[in-house]
């Protein structure tokens, strides 16, 4: 925790949404990759068939639903935890960037296809 900057609001709520967006990006990337790993996970991620979330979307429905849930839940939890607090924003931002970077990387086909079983 650092001292609040004079005359401005504490940065906790902004830190919360930055980290939440990083978590959501990573969750998306992880499920994109896990979808390639096994048929069971592929079946689980078909939220359109399993839970009626859209029609004909396939496993993409589960990947994006889980990433969005991760975004909303982690934002809410971190917001409650960090509300009114002044954090080391540089460190928070670097963590957020790493999470987003990992998420980006895991959505890149040459990377996530590395985890697909050999045909």
């Amino acid at each position, binding site marked *: 925790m650092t001292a609040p*900057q004079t*005359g*401005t*609001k504490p*940065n906790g*709520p*902004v830190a919360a*949404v*930055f980290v*939440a*967006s990083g978590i*959501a*990006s990573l969750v*998306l*990337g992880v499920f*994109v990759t896990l979808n390639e790993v096994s048929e069971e996970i592929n079946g689980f991620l078909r939220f359109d068939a399993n839970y009626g979330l*859209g*029609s*004909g*979307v*396939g496993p*993409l*429905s589960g*990947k*994006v639903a889980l*990433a969005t849930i991760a*975004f909303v839940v982690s934002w809410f939890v971190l917001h409650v935890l960090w509300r009114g607090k002044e954090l080391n*924003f*540089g460190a928070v*931002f670097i963590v*957020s*960037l790493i999470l*987003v970077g990992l*998420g*980006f990387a895991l*959505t*890149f*086909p*040459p990377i996530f296809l590395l985890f697909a079983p050999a045909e």
Partner: protein
Amino acid sequence: MEVTERELYTILHGLVLGTLFLLAFGGGMAGLWSLRSQLVTEEGVKERTPRLLIGTAVMAIVAWLTVISGTFIAYPWYRATPPEGTNLEDPAALADFPRYLLLAQEKTAGWHEFGMEWKEHVAWIAPFLATAVAFAVAYYGVQLIRRGDIRRAVMIFFVLAFAAAGVAGLFGAFITKAAPVA
């Protein structure tokens, strides 16, 4: 001159929302870049903050609308399965099944295997980042000029959101050209 219902939808998804996204990014980025005490007076900050908030909020809303409509309306059209017995190596029989049309030929298969596989996923990172940006701008308002650390982070996330949407938009345009959803 005719536009099918699906073509109209893809125009809305790609062209209309895409243009709004570009406009909101351009306006928002210009506002964030110049939000420095040596460049703007106190009055100037008050004058431009609502515009900055509108630009970043519009970008976030448009990003959500684009990925939701793309995923749950256009994508099922793209990945529709041909009827049993269709020759999956005959492009002429696959005109209404863009995914299978692309995969039917070696010269176009990469548009699906790389382009669509990346586009459909990376696009979803844009609304998360754009929401974070819009929230930060709404939360700090006129105080953002005194928070250089937050302003720089917001600008980086703003650019990353644009990059994610840009990759998706670019591949969307190429894929639609190679195998239109019509």
